[in-house]
């Protein structure tokens, strides 16, 4: 299985090169890839009931494997992907015949195919996530394929943002789940459903994973991205956005049902979200007149139905879900390709501008009719069986049943718009002069798929070897059932008759009320779409406002924020941990000698005097006092090396400050600051001083770990032949640090030199060009 996926990726990588060689027949050439996959997966059919597992270690340190598992459910999806893939790739060869970017298109399409296979075959949650995001990414590239168009870029970004955010939520859910169960292996997780349902992570994990599934499968209110994804070339819409990728969410829910399903939360969430999707998209579809948008809404209806069926659960619902999904793949992909052919040959997808194409595009129309009957849920098609089963499964649940009936009515209306209206009539109407039949590459694939819908409808037992293990995997236990076209007169059949009657009314009335509805609602971007737009527009606004506030050009503002946060967070942590622990004996009057006290008072006083200084002489003096007081502290407490260094550095700093200050006017030290800012910086300064002092007192009251010091003391002379331990640490034990530090010094000095040199190297005016200028002395 890994080999199959890798080979598909490889084929994608070869696509640009091979497609250029193959020219017009590239579509046929590359259809061999999904064809081979179809044969491979079909050959697995007899062996699939027990499940086949393949494991390749991937990130062993994290327990992440490239584990693959083929059972009924994944085989159903894999076959769907590869069989529809054959039709789509060959169709794309004709559809994109004159497109110079076809090689790139094939590359992404095949990569998608590989990633999608990865999603449905993965037996590891992390691997599934990676493939999942790969499908989102390839979908982004494919929707944005006509990147010069605004609507393509908008649709691509919207799809990526919505499915990508959902994918992140899903990853979080996976991590919770994997952490709880102790493995990321899906087959092991689903075996522990009872333990998971009883654990505390069940609810968050379910919500997060469901978010991933709902965004990917475009459930209300995340459905907004799917109609906008129709900006993609039609083969993409047929493949990703109806037959395969959007079903990944359904796949995930089906896969997780044994682990997360059969709870009230599961039931209500899925049935409510699915019903909302059914009703909302059924209503919204009435506004459309673009062939592909109409089909997109019909896809949303199908996805809603699948989610509802998963929510209800049980034996019949599991069967219904699998059959319904297969039927959908077999009719929806051809319908999309029909819409693409019409667009391609007749020049528009606007149903109001098309008439009578049936006489010039007979084969295409035949495909459309075959698929359309299945889509309407009429016998003798697979779609009929699927819908009957769905009705039967939903009989106990009133709301989903009503929603599904309403949606099926709308579906018949959509079929009327897509399959009947553009083709009906004698007079040919189309924007192009002479519309004609599409080439064989563009009808052969869809025709085969649509015929599949007929074959499996008439001979449903042919589907059983696939559907039975698939439904068993969804249900979580082995099922045994037979598929039949004719169930006798029962409640589902009566409901179907009702549906068809209402559907015909809608289909006929459509042309009358569609313009009014479009006028009323067509331009409205309220609801979820409006929320998305507001969100996307809001982000730059919020970030711009934030940037204006925190990223001013003023160094002082930055420092206030940085230091304020540092002090605030340290203070908050100290507060939350119950304050800084200062033992009572630390506050006993320390036994300092008088000159130690004098030095400490000098240091503190010098620091405060620096703050108050108004002239540069005052400031330099005060700073010097602090520096020398620190040197004396080092002297008193047995640090001669530090004391000498501090004395010398302090001297040099005073010299440098003096050299710089002498060049600046004295008035520069004046500070004109508002009272608010003085208060703010005073507050930050006070708190930071208190925190540092408090932390130091608390730290010094704790016992000291001297192991490192003891090592250096013991090793200094015997090992390093040095009696000054400080120096030995600097030049021997920790010499590497010292090397880094002197390198930093060199960098600092080079920076100083570079800054000053710009002044000195300015060429003096011509009349002053005396030799030796810069070094000429004062």
């Amino acid at each position, binding site marked *: 299985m890994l080999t199959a996926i890798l080979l598909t990726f490889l084929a994608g990588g070869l696509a640009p090169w091979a497609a250029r060689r193959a020219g017009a027949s590239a579509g046929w050439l590359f259809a061999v890839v999904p064809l081979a996959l179809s044969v491979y997966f079909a050959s697995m059919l007899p062996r699939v009931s027990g499940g086949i597992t393949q494991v390749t270690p991937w990130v062993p340190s994290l327990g992440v494997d490239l584990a693959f598992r083929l059972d009924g459910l994944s085989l159903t999806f894999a076959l769907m992907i590869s069989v529809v893939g054959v039709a789509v790739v060959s169709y794309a060869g004709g559809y994109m015949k004159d497109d110079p970017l076809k090689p790139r298109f094939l590359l992404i399409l095949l990569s998608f195919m590989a990633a999608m296979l990865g999603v449905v075959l993965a037996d590891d949650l992390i691997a599934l996530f990676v493939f999942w995001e790969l499908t989102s990414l390839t979908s982004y590239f494919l929707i944005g394929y006509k990147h010069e168009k605004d609507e393509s870029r908008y649709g691509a970004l919207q799809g990526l943002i919505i499915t990508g955010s959902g994918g992140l939520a899903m990853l979080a859910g996976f991590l919770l789940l994997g952490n709880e169960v102790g493995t990321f292996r899906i087959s092991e997780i689903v075996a522990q459903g009872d333990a998971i349902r009883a654990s505390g992570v069940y609810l968050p994990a379910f919500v997060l994973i469901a978010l991933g599934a709902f965004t990917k499968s475009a459930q209300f209110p995340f459905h907004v991205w799917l109609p906008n994804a129709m900006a993609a070339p039609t083969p993409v819409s047929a493949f990703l956005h109806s037959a395969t990728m959007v079903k990944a969410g359904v796949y995930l829910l089906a896969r997780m049902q044994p682990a997360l399903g059969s709870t009230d939360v599961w039931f209500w969430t899925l049935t409510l979200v699915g019903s909302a999707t059914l009703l909302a998209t059924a209503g919204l579809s009435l506004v459309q007149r673009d062939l592909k948008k109409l089909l997109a809404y019909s896809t949303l209806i199908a996805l809603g139905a699948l989610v509802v069926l998963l929510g209800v659960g049980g034996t019949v619902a599991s069967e219904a879900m699998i059959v319904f999904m297969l039927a959908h793949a077999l009719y929806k992909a051809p319908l999309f390709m029909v819409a693409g052919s019409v667009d391609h040959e007749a020049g528009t997808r606007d149903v109001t501008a098309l008439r009578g194409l049936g006489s010039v595009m007979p084969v295409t129309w035949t495909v459309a009719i075959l698929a359309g009957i299945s889509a309407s849920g009429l016998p003798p098609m697979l779609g009929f069986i699927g819908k009957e089963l769905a009705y039967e499964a939903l009989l106990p649940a009133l709301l989903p049943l009503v929603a599904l009936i309403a949606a099926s009515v709308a579906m018949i209306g959509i079929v009327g718009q897509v399959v009947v209206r553009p083709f009906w009539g004698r007079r040919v109407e189309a924007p192009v002069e002479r519309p004609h039949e599409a080439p064989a590459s563009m009808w052969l694939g869809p025709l085969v798929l649509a015929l599949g819908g007929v074959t499996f409808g008439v001979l449903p037992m042919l589907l059983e070897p696939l559907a039975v293990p698939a439904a068993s995997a969804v249900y979580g236990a082995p099922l045994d059932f037979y598929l039949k076209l004719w169930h006798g007169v029962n409640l589902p059949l009566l409901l179907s008759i009702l549906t068809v009657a209402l559907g015909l009314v809608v289909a006929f009335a459509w042309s009358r009320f569609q313009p009014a509805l479009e006028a009323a609602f067509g331009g409205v971007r309220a609801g979820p779409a409006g929320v998305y737009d507001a969100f996307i527009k809001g982000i730059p606004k919020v970030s711009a406002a934030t940037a204006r506030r925190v990223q001013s050009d003023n160094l002082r503002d930055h420092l206030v924020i940085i230091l304020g946060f540092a002090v605030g967070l340290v203070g908050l942590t100290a507060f939350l941990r119950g304050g800084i622990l200062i033992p009572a004996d630390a506050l006993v009057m320390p036994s300092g000698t008088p000159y130690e006290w004098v030095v400490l008072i000098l240091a503190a006083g010098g620091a405060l005097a620096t703050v108050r200084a108004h002239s540069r002489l005052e400031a330099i003096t005060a700073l010097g006092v602090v520096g020398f007081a620190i040197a004396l502290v080092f002297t008193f407490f047995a640090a*001669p*090396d530090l004391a*000498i*260094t501090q004395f*010398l*550095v302090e*001297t*040099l700093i005073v*010299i*440098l400050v003096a*050299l*710089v200050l002498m060049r600046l006017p004295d008035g520069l030290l004046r500070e004109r600051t508002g009272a608010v800012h003085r208060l703010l910086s005073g507050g930050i300064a006070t708190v930071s001083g208190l925190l540092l002092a408090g932390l130091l007192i608390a730290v010094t009251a704790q016992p000291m770990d001297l192991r490192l010091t003891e090592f250096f003391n013991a090793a200094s002379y015997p090992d*390093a*032949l*040095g*009696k*000054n331990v*400080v*120096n*030995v640490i*600097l*030049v*021997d034990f920790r*010499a*590497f640090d*010292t*090397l880094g530090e*002197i*390198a930093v*010094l*060199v960098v*600092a*000095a*080079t920076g*100083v*030199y570079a800054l*000053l*040199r710009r*002044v*000195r190297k300015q060429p003096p005016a011509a009349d002053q060009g005396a030799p030796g200028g*810069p*070094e*000429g*002395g*004062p």
Partner: protein
Amino acid sequence: MTSLILRTATRLLLAVLLLFSVFLLLRGHDLPGGGFIGGLVAASALALYALAFGSSAAAALLPVGPRPLMGVGLSAAALAGLLAALAGRPFLTGLWFVQDFGGYTLKLSTPLLFDVGVYLVVVGVVLTMVFGLEDD
């Protein structure tokens, strides 16, 4: 800054301070001192000289400019590490050469070479800054 007293005192102090800095450098391994301190003393002495006589005069006292001095110092410190590496030991391991000359012990070592490097870097860094500011 060009008073007679400063100039006279500086001229006397310079030699003493430079000598003292070398003394601090060399004794640093056993007693307070070392490359940082010695370098700072030497740099202070030369900075004082630059204040009194101008930086070009101070620069003239040095065989090389302050910036080459930094390079030489950094190279010496790195060489001290590389010598150990050449001897098959980890980088910067101390190597010692101890020889007794009838009561006088000569101790040469890579840590000493390293400290000399530190000394030169500190002198070069401080003088680059002071000369740069004191100039023009």
